[in-house]
């Protein structure tokens, strides 16, 4: 079933004399239960695209449908409610509240949705166990490693059972071991819990964990590859090939 549908969206910055087309007519769709990676060089428009989908930014033209609801038409309170109930966010720099413990960071996502307080504890413990952070729930962010912080952020994103999880360079600030652990958790959430994940990255290794990779170049769709039944290694090689084709910055980033 189609969950997210992006239709001919455009996002321009600047004025008439110097116009930057950050996103230039992109269309694609994501089915429920998919794990999609979006790749592209710096400046290819991937973060802008993500911001538009997450309603942090507004599109210049085009439509984005999530669950058959046009999010580009949402305003004010409806916008906040949409973000709160339908989306889960994972950021490159974790964005945990440094004054709260891991547990409280996760519970906050539930309490702003006015979820029942008595049921909260079980849900949090459950999700923490699945992400392997049960032991560190009472620690503060400054007492955690990068990988732990990102898994707490991940728990916060999925604890509310959002329709779509948006991850913006989630491994950008992690070492390779932590990255691998996090990505394996993503795969697990996707496969076992049926979470729909959309991840923006410029790292081919991260992208190889996805089921499908969409490549962007200069704000346009460049190509798309599907993992299918291939092994992760094979898929990784395939991604590298496209990245080579794309040329430029991405190879620098590798």
């Amino acid at each position, binding site marked *: 079933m189609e969950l997210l549908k992006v239709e001919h969206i455009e996002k321009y910055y600047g004025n008439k004399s110097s116009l930057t087309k950050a996103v230039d007519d992109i269309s694609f769709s994501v089915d429920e239960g998919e794990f999609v990676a979006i790749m592209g060089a710096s400046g290819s428009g991937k973060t802008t695209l993500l911001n538009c989908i997450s309603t942090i930014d507004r599109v210049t033209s085009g439509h984005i449908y999530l669950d058959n609801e046009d999010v580009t038409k949402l305003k004010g309170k409806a916008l906040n409610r949409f973000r709160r109930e339908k989306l889960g966010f994972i950021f490159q720099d974790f964005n945990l509240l440094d*004054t709260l413990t891991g547990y409280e960071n996760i519970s*906050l996502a539930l309490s702003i949705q006015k979820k029942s307080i008595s049921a909260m504890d079980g849900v949090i413990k459950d999700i923490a166990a699945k992400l392997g952070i049960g032991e560190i729930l009472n620690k503060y962010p400054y007492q955690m490693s990068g990988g732990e912080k990102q898994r707490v952020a991940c728990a916060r994103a999925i604890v509310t059972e959002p329709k779509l999880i948006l991850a913006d360079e989630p491994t950008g600030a992690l070492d390779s071991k932590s990255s691998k652990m996090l990505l394996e958790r993503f795969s697990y959430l996707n496969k076992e819990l049926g979470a729909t994940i959309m991840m923006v990255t410029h790292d081919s290794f991260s992208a190889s964990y996805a089921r499908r990779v969409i490549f962007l170049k200069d704000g346009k769709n460049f190509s798309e590859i599907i993992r299918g039944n291939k092994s992760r290694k094979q898929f990784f090689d395939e991604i590298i090939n496209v990245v080579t084709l794309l040329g430029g910055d991405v190879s620098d980033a590798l």
Partner: protein
Amino acid sequence: MLFKLSIRNIRRSVRDYAIYFFTLIIGVSIFYVFNAIGGQAAMIVIDESEYNIVELLTSVISVISVFVAVVLALLIVYASRFLMKRRHREYALYMMLGMSKGKISGILITETLMIGIGSLGIGLLVGVGLSQLMSAFVANLFDADMTAYEFTVSESAMVMTIIFFAIMYLLVMLFNSFAVTKMKLIDLIHSGDKSERVALRNPVLSILVFIVAAAGLGYAYYGVTTDFTNLSVKRMYLYIGLGIVTTFLIFWSISGLILRIVKSVKKVYYKGLNTFTLRQISSRVNTMVFSMTIICLMLFVTICTLSTCISIRNSLNKSIKEACAADVEIEFRGMSLNEEMVCESLDEYYAVKGYNPTDFMSSHVNYKVYKDGSTLADFCGDRAKEFEEQYRVFMFSFEENIIKQSDYNKLMELYGKEKVTLHGDEYAVVCDFNRMQEIRDQVLAGKPDLTLFDTTLHCAYDKCFIGAIDIWSNNSNVGVIIVPDDVVSEDAAVKEAIVGKYDTDDKEKIRETNKKIKDRIEELSNEWSNKLLSGQAEGTYVSNSISCETRTEIVAEQMGLSAIITFLGLYIGIVFLIACGAIIALKELSGSVDSLPRYQMLRKIGVEESSITGSIFKQTGIFFLMPLILAIVHSVFGMKFVSIGMEGMLSDEMWTSIFITAGIILLIYGGYFLITFISSKRIVREMPGKTE
């Protein structure tokens, strides 16, 4: 170049500086307004006796101004240091770019200069404007008419304000430059990496400290109120010290406990943004303990000063209306060993001189006051000891004043008050000093007999008459015993007086009459003191005195006193409130700037704007309320202490003064709260740089 940089800096950090600037402007204008009062009042007041009061007011205010200046200086130095600390990263950048410390000092000095000149200019303008309003207030106090009023600018106040504030700004510059020379680049660079470690205190220790502090405070409260009679200066210091220390400890322990307490109530803690709000508070409360203590104590002083001053003022104003039922009282106290001098009465003496002061009066009464050596203790009889224990402020060896029934009734007729009727060998008491009236009423309730001039008299009334015999009494008559005329022996007279009324209401005529009477009295008084001097030379002893009080003087004196007290209370109160408000506001605003990323994150995960506003309101509210609540508790006992200590001077209706005090606090402190809340909201609402 440096100048440009300074201007840009100020403009950029305007949200940090706004409160600082605002506070400076209020400080300058208040300073000017109160120092200009003398000049303003002198404009309005024409009467000499009133003018003396104005001079007294001016000098009292300039003394207090020094104290106020110290408070303001501390506030300014604190605020500027605080703002400077916030900019450590900026200085680090300058230093990395190769700017010398001298140049950084230069930037700071230019900034301070600009802010200083700006605030002084605007503050003086506001002050001049406000002082015109103040004039109307002063005119109202002195009952003067405003028709002759002109727009005035007090030069001396202006010069004084400029000098005081110039010194303060100079101090700030020195402090800042000194701080710059001590800065180390490495520290500056790392100053931004705040360790957000929430120092969790041992809960058992916190509870223990809280209990000890509360007990200590309770002991101090008990000491200054219930145990008032055992209070000595030494103990007073002990209680004050105890109060300060326990205030600090209470904030210290509460800051450690508050989170734990709320956390244990899961339903509250995990509701909405409460988790976030509480953590925000507890992450800052640790660093706020010290400033909250200072603010709490300052608020306490403010509340007590304001309500005491307003209460005294109300009671004075009330007594002005009540007292002074006649225009003039001339008092003659005489005892003479010089035969020539002895006169039977004032009238007679004046007759010798060829004129009579009563010439100018439309009606008058002569009366005498007698003493027979019996004391207040004698009056109390068996209960003297008991009362002496209870009311330590009174002298029980004080000799009772006695007046003849006929004199008293003549007086009351003049004053238009109730007369007394005594049958044969009865006595009555007239008194209007609160606490003394309490004692006397308790005694009179038993209707005891009293022996005066070797005659046993029966009690005619079981209560005191409320009133006084002198026109200047002002609720301070500790008691006069009224007896039948034939009881007293004439040679026991200690004073003779004439109380008179004029036949006019015209202010100008009253003033003229006052002057005529006063001139004659002065002449007489001089004559006597010359005789006294020559008498001493001849080895004879003369002790005669004559004095005169007019209603005009008494009213002016009380009004002036009332004005001085009102102004002092307002002056100190307002300055303290500004200082308190400014400190919290600065801390809160900088806290909001620091927390900006947190709020942005909350928005990203879809928190409603109204919830965020609610959270900011709670945070700001708690930081403003915590010191205020403890200060109010302190004040309840503080005011009890004041009302015991200043018996009779305070108005009975304490509620009026408490309401006015609350109003002033609400206006200024509440104003700071509102500004802080609104600017915090604005700071947090900024969503810098739509992500590109």
